[in-house]
C-alpha cells in the first residue's frame, strides 16, 4: 500500500443510493460467488462481488463443450448453470454476508414474471448492495428473443424488478452489444427505473473446429469475451455516457489491467467489472483495482470521480 499522501486517490464511486468504496468488481459468471477467488485475494477489498446470474430454479446449463479459446478471448455457452435462488440465498449470499463482501446480486429469467419473482424473493434479504439484472436471456414468451434486444421487453423487465425492490437498492440493467443502437435500449431501461447500466455482456460468435469440421461448442453459438472485445465495450460505454451523462455505468469487456480499466472510466464508466481475464489469473480483479489507483494518481487525479467521462469533449451549451 502506498502511504505517500500525494498519491492517494479517493476511489469511491456511486450508483444511485449505493456508494462503493472502490470501483472494481468481478463480472457476473466469472467469479461464481466469490468464495473460490477468496483463496487468492481478500474479496472484501474489491468494490463488489457481482455474483453469477441466478435464476428461480436450479439449472443444469448446456452440454459440453461449453468453451473455446479464441485470440485474446474465449467463446462460452455455459447456459446459466446454477443452483436456483433458494440455494443461492442459503449458501452463497450467506457466505458473502458472513465474509463481509460488498455484494451485487445478478438475476436472470426467462420471463418478466421470473425476474419479478426473483426480485420479490431477494427483497427482504440482507447484504445486497445492488441488483444487476442480466437481460441477455431469451424471452420464452417471445420465441426466445433476447430481452436486451427489444426496448419494450427490456424496459418491462426493469420496471418489474424496480417495483419489487427496496428503493434504496439500486438496479443495474445489463445490456448486450448485439443491437443496432445501444442507446435506445439504454433509454428504455433508464425510463423503466434502472439506476445504472452494466455494459457489456458477451457478443455472439461461432468457432468451427477444423479437425472435426463441426462447430466447436455443443451449443454452436457462444458469447465472446475477453480483451478481444474491449474496444467494442469501450464504445458502448462511450455512447451511453454521451447520451445519458448522469446515468452511472458499470463498464466491462476485456479488462485485464489498470490502464484497461482507466479507458472505461475515461469513456464514462463509474466502475468496472473484470471477467474473463480472471481465468488467466485469479488475482486479476484485485490487481486491476490497485493499478487503476496508481494510474489515476500518475495522471494527477485525486478522485476517481473526476476521471469519469474525462475523455469526452467538454459540454458546450
Amino acid at each position, binding site marked *: 500500500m502506498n502511504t505517500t499522501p500525494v498519491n492517494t486517490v479517493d476511489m469511491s464511486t456511486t450508483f444511485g443510493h449505493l456508494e462503493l468504496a472502490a470501483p472494481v468488481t468481478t463480472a457476473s459468471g*466469472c*467469479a*461464481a460467488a466469490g468464495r*473460490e*477467488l477468496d*483463496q*487468492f485475494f481478500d474479496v472484501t477489498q474489491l468494490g463488489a462481488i457481482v455474483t*453469477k446470474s441466478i435464476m428461480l*430454479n436450479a439449472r*443444469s*446449463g*448446456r*452440454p*459440453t*463443450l*461449453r*468453451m473455446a*479459446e479464441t*485470440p*485474446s*478471448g*474465449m467463446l*462460452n*455457452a*455455459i*447456459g*446459466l*448453470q446454477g*443452483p*436456483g435462488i433458494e440455494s443461492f440465498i442459503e449458501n452463497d449470499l450467506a457466505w458473502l454476508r458472513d465474509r463481509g463482501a460488498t455484494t451485487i446480486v445478478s438475476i436472470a429469467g*426467462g420471463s418478466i414474471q421470473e425476474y419479478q419473482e426473483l426480485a420479490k424473493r431477494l427483497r427482504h434479504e440482507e447484504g445486497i448492495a445492488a441488483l444487476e439484472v442480466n437481460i*441477455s*436471456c*431469451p*424471452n*420464452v414468451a*417471445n*420465441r*426466445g*428473443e*433476447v430481452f436486451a*434486444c427489444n426496448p419494450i421487453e427490456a424496459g418491462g423487465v426493469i420496471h418489474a424488478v424496480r417495483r419489487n425492490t427496496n428503493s434504496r437498492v439500486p438496479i443495474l440493467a445489463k445490456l*448486450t452489444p*448485439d*443491437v443496432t443502437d445501444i442507446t435506445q435500449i439504454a433509454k428504455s431501461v433508464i425510463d423503466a427505473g434502472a439506476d445504472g447500466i452494466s455494459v457489456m455482456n*458477451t457478443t*455472439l460468435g*461461432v468457432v468451427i473446429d477444423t479437425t472435426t469440421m463441426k462447430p466447436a461448442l455443443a*451449443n*454452436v*453459438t*457462444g*458469447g465472446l469475451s475477453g*480483451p478481444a472485445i474491449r474496444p467494442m465495450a469501450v464504445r458502448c460505454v462511450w455512447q451511453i455516457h454521451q447520451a445519458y451523462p448522469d446515468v452511472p455505468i458499470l463498464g466491462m469487456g476485456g479488462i485485464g489491467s489498470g490502464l484497461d480499466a482507466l479507458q472505461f472510466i475515461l469513456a464514462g464508466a463509474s466502475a468496472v467489472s473484470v471477467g474473463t*481475464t*480472471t*481465468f*488467466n*489469473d*485469479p488475482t486479476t480483479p484485485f490487481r486491476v483495482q490497485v493499478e487503476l489507483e496508481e494510474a489515476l494518481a500518475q495522471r494527477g487525479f485525486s478522485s476517481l470521480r473526476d476521471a469519469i467521462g474525462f475523455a469526452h469533449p467538454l459540454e458546450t451549451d
Partner: protein
Amino acid sequence: MPSAVADPIRVEAEVLSVRRVGEYFVMAFAAPGIAERVSPGHFVAIAVGGDRSSMLLRRSFSIYRVDPSGSFGGTLEIVVGPKGAGTQWLVSRRPGDMVNLIAPLGRPFSLPVDPVACILVGGGYGAAPMFALAEQLRERGSHVDLVLGAATESRLFGLVEGRRAATTLTTTTEDGSDGVQGRVTDVLPDLIKQHDSQVIYGCGPMGMLQAIAGVASDHGIASQCAVEESMACGVGVCMTCVLPVIGNDGVTRMVRSCTEGPVFFGDQVRWSDVGTVPDDCLGAPTPTVVSAPLQGRGALPDEPAPRGPVSRGGVR
C-alpha cells in the same frame, strides 16, 4: 467425492529442466510452497504464451512428482504431450525461464483405509500421477499392480520408474509395439483375480476411464478416475468443466471437474452421458419443443433443434 479440497497458491516458477521422453516432455519447475501441499491426483494450471499472450486460458496438467526438500526450495514436475499452441510454447521453455503456475488444484485420489491390493492404470501421459500414488499405497502395505497403456510404445510413459514404484508392471499397446497387444482393460480381469484387488485407480483418456469404471463395477470393486475435461479457469469460477455425476443422494448434477474432481468414483460418473445434459439431471431443461423458428438475434439457421424453450440465444 474423494479427499478434501486443495489450498492452491499461485507462483512464478523457474523452469529447471525440460527432458524429452518418447513423445513427451518432462518439465521440472522450482515451485516453492507447493510441493508440501500436493497429493497424487492434484493438478497444476499453467499460464502460457508469456505476459502479452493472446492465449488467455491456463493449461492443466496432472502433477507427476514433487520434492519439498529439493535444493530449489521445492520442485514440481509434469509430463507434457504437446498438442496445440499452448503446450508447444510450454515445452519450448528453457531452464531459467519463468512460468506462472497455480497448484495444487482439485481433489486428489483417496487412499483405502486398509492395505488392500490396488490396480493403477495410466493411459499415455495419464501415467503421470500413478508413480507417486503407487509409492504411497505400497508404503501403507498395499500390493500395487501398475498397468500402463498407450497406442504405441513411444507413448508409454515411465516404464523404468513404474517397475520400481509398483509391485508389478504390465504394459499394453494397441499396435503391440510393447507388452500386451490391446487395451488396458484386456489385462484387468486377470489382475483383479490374482490378488483380489479392491480398487482400480485410473488416469487417461475419457474412453479408457469409462472402460475401467465398467470393469471395476463388473467385478464389484471400487474405481477412482481422474477425468480430463476442457477447463477455462481451473479454480471453480466458470462452470465450463462440468460432467454429469450422481451424488450420494442419487441425484445427477453437472459438477465441476476442476474443484469436485478431477478424481471421481467411477460409479458416480455417467460416462455415456458425458457431453450431454441427461434429462433427469438436476435443473435439466424440460423437454418441450419450440415449434416456430426463432427470430431473436443469435438464432442461426443451422443450429440444431433446441433442447428446451430457453436453450437458445441465452449464451451469456
